[in-house]
């Protein structure tokens, strides 16, 4: 079962911006080191509840936060193969 998703960013600044936007929207999220198996520009990613994917994505789009990709995760750090 997919519990979490992970958002990848091009820059650390965008990750911080995303965190600020989602915290303001009362979403439970956590900044984590980017899982190495996912190719990414930036060492920090944002983990979120996969059930809230469309909501989270909408918040970021609305706030014009630049992000690289959204991936599902099977547990806290392992991504789904």
């Amino acid at each position, binding site marked *: 079962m997919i519990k979490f998703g992970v958002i990848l960013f091009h*820059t650390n600044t*965008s990750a911080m911006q995303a965190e600020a936007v989602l915290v303001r929207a009362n979403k439970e999220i956590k900044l984590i080191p980017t899982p190495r198996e996912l190719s990414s520009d930036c*060492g920090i990613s944002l983990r979120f509840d996969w059930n809230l994917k469309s909501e989270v994505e909408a918040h970021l789009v609305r706030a014009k936060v630049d992000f690289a990709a959204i991936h599902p995760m099977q547990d806290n750090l392992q991504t789904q193969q």
Partner: protein
Amino acid sequence: MIYLDYAATSWPKPKEVGRAMSDFMEFSGGNPGRSGHRLSISAARIVFNTRQAVADLFHAPDPLRVIFTANVTHALNLALCGILKPGDHVVTSSIEHNSVMRPLRALEKDGIRLTVVQCNKDGCLDLDAWRAAVTPGTRLVVVTHASNVMGTVLPIKEIAGIAHQAGALLLVDSAQTAGVIPIDQPTMGIDLLAFTGHKGLYGPTGTGGLVIGEGVDTSQMRPIVRGGTGSRSEYEEQPDLLPDKYESGTVNSVGIAGLGAGVRWVQSIGVESIRAREAELNELFLSGLHNIRGITVYGPQNPEERTAVVSCRIAGHNVSEVGLRLDDEFGILCRVGLHCAPSAHKTIGTFPEGTIRLAPGIFTSPEDIRTVIAAFEKAANPHD
């Protein structure tokens, strides 16, 4: 002691600034944007919060276009050296600080064409002369928002209109105005806004930055320093991403923590209120000094056209002698000489000796100003 050197750096700093820096050292000392552990993330969050606070202060829509630099000089160099190429035409005013003049004179040797438009004796710009200098081939226009010597404020909106009509970008040096005069970057038409953290924003030295407007194509602006950014680490080429493209190497995170506290403190008072308060001090200063025999005050009389920075001279006394007496006998701390702006002093006719510059700030009281005027009366006319 009366500190009147805010134009060089503000002092004292609000206690919130020192506390933010001390807290950063104690609780958030990781490298922002490099690692994924809690101390690194905490540091990155503080750096981002300052970036957002700076963007909000200048009404800039995108915090990613706020680039942190070591100071305003570094920011001005980034804009000038990053954008200009041999053959480009640049227009500037004759009241610029050497932080603009020196990079421009060096770039001139590399082949840029430079036009310096002469300001009048008060440092005010003749907009007709300015209009004639900015041509359709002009690449960049660079001006100070306000003179660091005599406080003259330049009409940025009009300058922006003329620059944009010719297809040129506008770079503004806000060293003397950020936190002192309200700045709305998009509305005023400022394409590149260079600011310092340690003057009107009440942050620590070693902080400043460049706010890049939406109209600037950053693919056409080279970085002046390249290196690690924490992003695109698999490549040996500099990334094109903002702010990383222009922020190689670890930023001054503890300084930026202090800057954030300074900006929030300034915002809590309100730049409009600061401007009004400084205008009152300025009026007291100007009227007091004008009544003293032997004192010449430089710069415009109209408070709308100036900041609170006052430059003056006492007939028959050299400025360094007066500066030393003010410090030793009266405990008044100011800066005398050329203020790193020889061109501005040539413009107002005070080169090469310079002036006595009195620059009050938020912690200066009307009583301080009255004490300073009394000291000038004694210094100018000791036998009265």
